[in-house]
């Protein structure tokens, strides 16, 4: 058939180094175009917008350029002759096949037009030929209007999400690594161009480029160790490959309108460089995971300070980010922090400032909204994109770092709304600054623990007040952990040769206390209502008689239920007990992880007057 001969002639142009040469490739091309037009007319009406018609116009323009020296190149006579054979055979082609013939014709025209365009050195002629080539390209490959990098990244992210059920198959690993290399190379190119244009700070740029190269090298290693799946792809794997491939085509396809480079780079950075951490987990390579974490942190820096990338340079030096120290000179993988750690540890720059005036009275709806933002931030800081919690379903993981920031801001605003009471309570204390600091931490804890679903959200200030009262009357330390009224004086443990612990809790201790407090709160929530209600009222300092009157119970019943509640809490929190904990024995209801905190607190108080037995609210 005619098309087979055309196929042979096209291949000959690539492989036959000793084939015929023409002194004027443009003249050859003109003859080829004439045949293409004749074929197209035979196949049906030709509009002015038909790509072959546009090609003919462009060729006419190219040949009309004056003072162009002829270009020597491989002869196109064979192609023209083969196309003549196709033209002669078209009469026998059924009408139903005409569309297929038109597509084949356009495809041949595209190949040859590109070859001629590349061969011709004159820029003016090439511009005409490129116009014709673009018309053919558009007809064949139909570049979509959705050619933005953001859309491509959204498609890529969506495809990665669909991978999860089959995440560890060889096909998925290979496809994800191959695809991600395309994203990395595109990012590399855009960063390099931004650097040349001066629209991005140099050190940040260097860190990004280093991270991209490290991750690309890790993917290379993965792909060379696992060259192919070695088995047929399942339907699920095929579907994933199609989606990933489609996203890549969107990223690499020639766009109808090229969006600015900084817009493309912004989209890539906001997507965590194509969800680098997720891809690294898919490839299950330690080096890739370490490199991806580094890239993720840089992307988070950008999210926190999008002004790092400007539309016109040079970028402000004042916003130079901290350089992420990479693992290594040795190239050994760092102990890979997870994506959670990257989000939680995202560099903040300045701490969030309140967006409301101190003492602003917040209504219930405002408190509920702030608590919602707080909870989203807490969830986003610890969530796994591969298995997001219900609270984060439907939220693009690339937005999670912003949720973390927003959550922190919400807590700051909650605290700001009640901060005047801290100043009021502290002003008459013996050491106002220290007291204020302790109370601030107590209010901060309260802002983290207040649950608007369990009480009237408008009662947030009262909850904060009660927290301060509770700590004052019960001698609660600044982690919110009450010191029980012990039957015997606390055991003083000498430290021997060791330096005494500081009275200021170190950050790890604060975190430990916070987790311990969370465990305690969860245990309380798990109590049945008939035990939980009396316990909570007792925690507020109410007497058993008052509790009994409120709940319609006798005082003895209240005492019995309080004992049952403490027993259940002890059983619930037993798994948290460290088997080799050597801390002094305290009241058994308290979880032992709190004991160390309590011990530090008591040691600090050893030099101060003790709380006398019986002082404070009676029970």
């Amino acid at each position, binding site marked *: 058939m005619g*098309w*087979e001969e*055309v*196929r042979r002639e*096209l*291949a000959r142009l*690539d492989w036959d180094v000793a084939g015929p040469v023409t002194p004027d490739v443009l003249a050859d091309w003109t003859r080829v175009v004439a045949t293409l037009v004749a074929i197209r007319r035979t196949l049906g009406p030709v509009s002015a917008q038909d790509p072959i018609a546009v090609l003919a116009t462009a060729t006419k323009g190219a040949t009309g350029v004056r003072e162009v020296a002829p270009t020597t190149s491989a002869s196109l006579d064979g192609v023209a002759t083969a196309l003549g054979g196709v033209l002669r055979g078209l009469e026998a082609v*059924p009408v*139903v*096949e005409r*569309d*297929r*013939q038109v*597509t*084949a014709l*356009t*495809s*041949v025209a*595209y*190949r040859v037009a*590109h*070859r001629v365009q*590349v061969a011709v050195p004159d820029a003016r002629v090439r511009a005409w030929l490129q116009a014709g080539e673009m018309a053919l*390209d558009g007809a*064949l*490959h139909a570049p979509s209007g959705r050619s933005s990098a953001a859309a491509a990244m959204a498609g890529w992210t969506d495809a990665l999400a669909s991978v999860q059920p089959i995440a560890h198959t060889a096909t998925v690993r*290979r*496809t994800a690594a*191959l*695809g991600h*290399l*395309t994203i990395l*190379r*595109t990012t*590399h*190119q855009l960063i390099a161009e931004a650097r040349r244009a001066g629209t991005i700070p140099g050190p940040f740029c260097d860190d990004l480029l280093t991270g991209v*190269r490290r991750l*690309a*090298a890790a*993917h*290379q290693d993965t*792909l*060379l160790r696992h*060259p*192919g799946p*070695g*088995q*047929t*792809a399942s339907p699920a794997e*095929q*579907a994933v*490959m*199609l989606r*990933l*491939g*489609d996203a*890549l*085509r969107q990223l*690499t396809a020639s766009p109808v309108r090229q969006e600015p480079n900084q817009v493309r780079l912004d989209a890539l950075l906001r997507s965590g460089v194509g969800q680098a951490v997720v891809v690294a987990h898919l490839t299950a390579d330690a080096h890739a995971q370490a490199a991806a974490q580094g890239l993720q942190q840089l992307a988070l820096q950008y999210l926190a300070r999008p002004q790092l990338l400007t539309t016109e340079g040079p970028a402000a030096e004042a916003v130079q980010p901290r350089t992420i120290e990479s693992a290594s000179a040795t190239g050994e993988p760092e102990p890979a922090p997870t994506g959670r750690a990257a989000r939680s540890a995202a560099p903040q720059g300045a701490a969030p400032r309140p967006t409301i005036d101190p003492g602003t009275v917040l209504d219930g709806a405002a408190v509920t909204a702030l608590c919602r933002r707080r909870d989203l931030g807490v969830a986003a800081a610890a969530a796994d994109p591969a298995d997001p919690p219900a609270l984060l379903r439907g939220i693009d993981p690339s937005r999670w770092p912003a949720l973390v920031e927003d959550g922190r801001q919400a807590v700051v605003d909650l605290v700001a709304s009640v901060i005047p009471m801290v100043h009021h309570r502290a002003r008459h204390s013996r050491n106002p600054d220290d007291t204020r600091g302790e109370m601030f931490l107590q209010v901060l804890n309260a802002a983290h623990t207040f649950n608007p679903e369990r009480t009237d959200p408008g009662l947030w200030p009262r909850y904060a007040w009660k927290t301060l009262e509770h700590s004052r009357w019960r001698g609660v330390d600044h982690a919110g952990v009450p010191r029980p009224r012990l039957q015997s004086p606390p055991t003083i443990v000498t430290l021997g040769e060791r330096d005494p612990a500081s009275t200021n809790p170190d950050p790890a201790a604060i975190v430990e206390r916070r987790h311990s407090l969370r465990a305690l709160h969860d245990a309380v929530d798990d109590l049945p209502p008939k035990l939980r209600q009396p316990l909570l009222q007792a925690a507020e300092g109410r007497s058993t008689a008052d509790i009994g009157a409120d709940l319609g119970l006798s005082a003895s019943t209240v005492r019995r239920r309080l004992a049952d509640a403490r027993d259940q809490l002890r059983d619930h929190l037993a798994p948290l007990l460290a088997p080799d904990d050597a801390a002094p024995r305290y009241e058994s209801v308290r979880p032992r992880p709190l004991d160390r905190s309590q011990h530090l607190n008591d040691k600090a108080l050893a030099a101060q007057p003790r709380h006398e037995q019986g002082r404070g609210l009676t029970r």
Partner: protein
Amino acid sequence: MTEVRIPIESIGRVDLLLGRATALSAVWFDETAAAIQEAMGLALYLAAAHPCSSPIAVPGLEGLDVPGCVDAALREVQSWDLLLAGDLPGMGRLEVLLSDLRRTLASRGRG
């Protein structure tokens, strides 16, 4: 209608060849790598759209360098019937990319 068989096995071989070429050029970060990756993306999409029912292998794949992979892939693509242009989206672009890559790699003597 003329039946034109889709060369499923050949598509699978092109996918493997361009996958290797992409892996070998993973750290190039230049226009050549861009072209290889674009070609790989087209081949990957075609392979996903036309999966083979039996495992595909390319003899001697692990010994091929980038020019070798590109050459082999171009020969495979040039064996595809031109009438498949409508059935295999990007076929023309794939061939053009591979042809350009072959010329570029040959002129630079890159391996």
